[in-house]
């Protein structure tokens, strides 16, 4: 982004024309930073909960940090360092976030979290299958002749990718979308199939079945660059279109058509969305889908292949830090944060420090998260705004914005490392998080040398080996630090145990106890489960272009363009429940009940309902109250899209 500032206010925000992934454009959230930086509700001083619990009062930094430090010290001596939970999310994240360990390491190691809410199952599936999560440069998208987007909606979640897809389509590429909902992406597509949520493994194996039956698999490529193909083909044979049709609820003819179109057209690009892996068998689903580009010989081909995550820019090393305590830290599941806090014993968790995160809004099982945080003797939340989580805190410390401290940021679609310049002074009493950590270190008598006066010193130490001059290059343009080049996997060599693409993954079986070859397993909370008798509708809570989860929705600029959060429900499902467009409805299951207005959506698959996720302002529905705190089969993800509900009149 190129940002112009005049007298402390942002007057222009443009995309960097030197970034070929974005073509010099910025999404609406990027543009809304002009509002966000100076928003009237931005927190600019430390706040302390009033005694008696009602509301907050302003407090100066010294009083706040003296008291917080004294209370942390008391907890540490009474119950040990792991009686304190440190939880950081990824909101407003930068490389300098790692400096929190300059405090926590000498503190003795807090309880931490593992896994995340976003995409870990897909990452692990990609790693097990291809050895690394990398893909070709986004600009090769336009060379594709067939683009299959699976559980992916870039019209909402990656507008820059949408531009490339539309461009490819205008050059003649066929675009197909697999999504139970109709979206602006599926509306642009030539083919749209709408499976039942959670049945994608069966659909992927069904496509493989048709592709192999028709002889469209690339035997020469497979014999050189893949292992476990025989076992996989045997599995695919168990999934003829008729069986897959019964599981997925898609007409078998539609399965055949999609498979043949994908199998016959090269180069074909398969892009998987994160939503595809938010259920309990997600890792195996992602393995099944990720293998299709390999089966058809599309890997290493310009305009073809597999796209889920591109970690090419994730090359930073940790800066010098004090030694971590011996042994692994105590850790609780991020996906099960509330229960984790409540269940921890010896010592129990008595305090939490939450940074760059809003778990009350964003974690599944809201009730347990609130209960967990309410039991604490001390809750410190660092944030720019008064979030649902901050409201429960004893102290809310103001966080900097991304324009107020120099930092390095990595990406997960394009390969570029980027330098974020400091272009504004933090407003009011706001301090960068690294400065908050330094001040705590001072109070505890810990070493403060790790906090360089100029953050650039720390950033330089984090650059990849031998690339210390990269910072200066980054001042003028984004840099791909990986040296991988534009086209990935051209040589057909993969950093897996076998050096090949693993159709059967012994490592998956060993690490996660799953079948080495992906198999379809019905969801515990799916359409065939016992629960479906009482709660027959599958709830999806998908992302939207106007927000990143619980961020941005408070801004007046965003509210001007934002759509209301309503329950998208098929007219037939609504009619069966006596509901019309605009009615208030109760969405409920045994975990809770949420009131939302009905929006009749003839484009959504019957049996599926949808509400946009991300609770930011009090009038947003708390859909996460209805969602369980289950965990994915691989890598500790959350299962947001495995949630059965019923909808009725209030």
């Amino acid at each position, binding site marked *: 982004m190129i940002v112009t500032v005049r007298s402390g206010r942002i007057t222009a925000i443009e995309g960097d024309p030197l970034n070929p992934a974005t073509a010099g*454009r910025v999404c*609406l959230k990027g543009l809304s930073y002009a509002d966000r930086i100076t928003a009237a509700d931005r927190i600019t001083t430390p706040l302390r909960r009033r005694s008696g619990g009602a509301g907050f009062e302003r407090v100066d930094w010294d009083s706040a940090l003296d008291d917080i430090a004294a209370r942390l010290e008391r907890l540490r001596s009474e119950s040990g360092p792991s009686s304190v939970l440190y939880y950081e999310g990824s909101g407003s994240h930068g490389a300098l976030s790692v400096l929190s360990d300059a405090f926590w390491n000498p503190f003795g190691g807090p309880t931490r979290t593992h896994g995340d809410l976003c995409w870990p199952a897909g990452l692990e599936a990609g790693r097990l299958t291809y050895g690394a999560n990398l893909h070709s440069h986004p600009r090769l998208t336009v060379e594709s002749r067939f683009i299959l987007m699976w559980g992916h909606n870039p019209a909402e979640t990656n*507008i820059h990718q*949408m531009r490339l897809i539309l461009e490819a389509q205008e050059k003649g590429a066929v675009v197909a979308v697999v999504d139970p909902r*109709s979206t602006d992406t599926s509306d*642009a597509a030539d083919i749209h199939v709408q499976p039942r949520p959670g049945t994608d493994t069966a659909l992927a194996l069904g496509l493989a079945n048709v592709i192999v039956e028709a002889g469209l698999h690339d035997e020469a490529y497979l014999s050189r660059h893949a292992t476990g193909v025989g076992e996989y083909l045997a599995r695919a044979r168990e999934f003829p279109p008729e069986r897959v049709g019964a599981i997925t609820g898609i007409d078998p003819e539609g399965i055949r058509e999609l498979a043949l179109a994908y199998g016959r057209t090269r180069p074909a690009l398969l892009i998987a969305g994160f939503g595809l892996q938010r259920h309990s068998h997600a890792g195996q689903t992602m393995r099944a889908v990720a293998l299709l580009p390999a089966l058809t010989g599309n890997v290493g081909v310009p305009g073809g292949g597999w796209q889920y995550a591109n970690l090419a820019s994730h090359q930073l090393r940790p800066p010098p830090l004090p030694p971590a305590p011996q042994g692994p830290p105590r850790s609780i599941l991020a996906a099960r944060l509330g229960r984790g806090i409540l269940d921890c014993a010896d010592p129990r968790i008595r305090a939490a420090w939450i940074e760059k995160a809003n778990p009350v809004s964003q974690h599944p099982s809201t009730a347990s998260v609130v209960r967990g945080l309410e039991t604490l003797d001390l809750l410190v939340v660092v944030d720019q705004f008064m979030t649902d989580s901050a409201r429960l805190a004893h102290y809310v410390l103001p966080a900097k914005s991304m324009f107020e401290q120099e930092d390095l940021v990595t990406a997960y679609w394009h390969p570029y490392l980027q330098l974020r310049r400091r272009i504004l002074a933090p407003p009011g009493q706001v301090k960068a998080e690294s400065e908050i950590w330094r001040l705590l270190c001072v109070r505890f008598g810990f070493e403060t040398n790790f906090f360089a006066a100029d953050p650039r010193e720390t950033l330089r130490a984090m650059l990849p080996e031998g690339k210390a001059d990269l910072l200066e290059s980054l001042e003028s343009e984004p840099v791909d630090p990986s040296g991988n080049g534009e086209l990935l996997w051209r040589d057909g060599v993969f950093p897996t145990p076998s050096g090949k693409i693993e159709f059967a993954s012994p490592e998956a079986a060993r690490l996660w106890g799953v079948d080495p070859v992906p198999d379809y397993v019905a969801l515990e909370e799916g359409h065939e489960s016992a629960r479906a008798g009482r709660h027959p509708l599958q709830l999806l809570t998908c992302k939207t272009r106007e927000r990143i989860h619980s961020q941005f929705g408070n801004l007046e600029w965003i509210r001007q363009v934002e759509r209301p959060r309503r329950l998208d429900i098929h007219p037939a499902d609504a009619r069966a429940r006596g509901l019309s467009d605009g009615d208030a409805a109760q969405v409920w299951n045994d975990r809770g009940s949420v009131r939302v207005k009905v929006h009749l959506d*003839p*484009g959504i698959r019957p049996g599926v309902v949808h509400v946009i996720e991300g609770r930011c302002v009090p009038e947003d529905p708390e859909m996460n109250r209805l969602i369980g705190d289950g965990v994915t089969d691989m890598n500790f993800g959350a299962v947001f899209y495995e949630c059965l509900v019923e909808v009725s009149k209030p």
Partner: protein
Amino acid sequence: MRGAGFVLDLGRCVGCGACVLGCRLSNAWPAGVSWRRIVPFNLDRRGGGPTYHLSLSCHHCERPACVNACPAGAYTKRSDGVVVLNEERCIGCRYCEMACPFDAPSYDGAAGVMTKCHLCSERIDSRLQPACVAACPTEALTFRGRNGVEREKEPVPGFSDPAGCAPSLDFIPPRRAKRSHLYERLREVLKR
């Protein structure tokens, strides 16, 4: 010859709203004012879909109702077709707001005057794109100079010209396979 105006590619606009905020950032309109908005059409998916989005602002009409309605002479139509409002002459009577069938003039209550898209006339005079066009991530919204080619003659569902103002906004209909087919079917459905 028609004057300058916007061109919207219905197959490329996904309604993201970056044009709205790009305009707001460049032209610094205050809260409560809106020079551009996204109007989704066919959310109920008549004809099977698609839903598409109209990014609308002032259309810099050939026969602008605002110009005729203004008792203060605050509006002028430039030789290149751009309809500009001189806020200093505006008396805040809001007649233009009533006359314009497109809700283009937007009242700034704090300043007591109307405000409106001026097609970033200063930017286009220095050969820059209007701010909304520069902000469009999918390049769906473009700018057509007064010598630009006219595109779509057929009426676009969701958009009409009830007062005969002859808006200078042009549309490019969806061109590709299924979407184009559904779009044509929607037209048929709406004609019936």
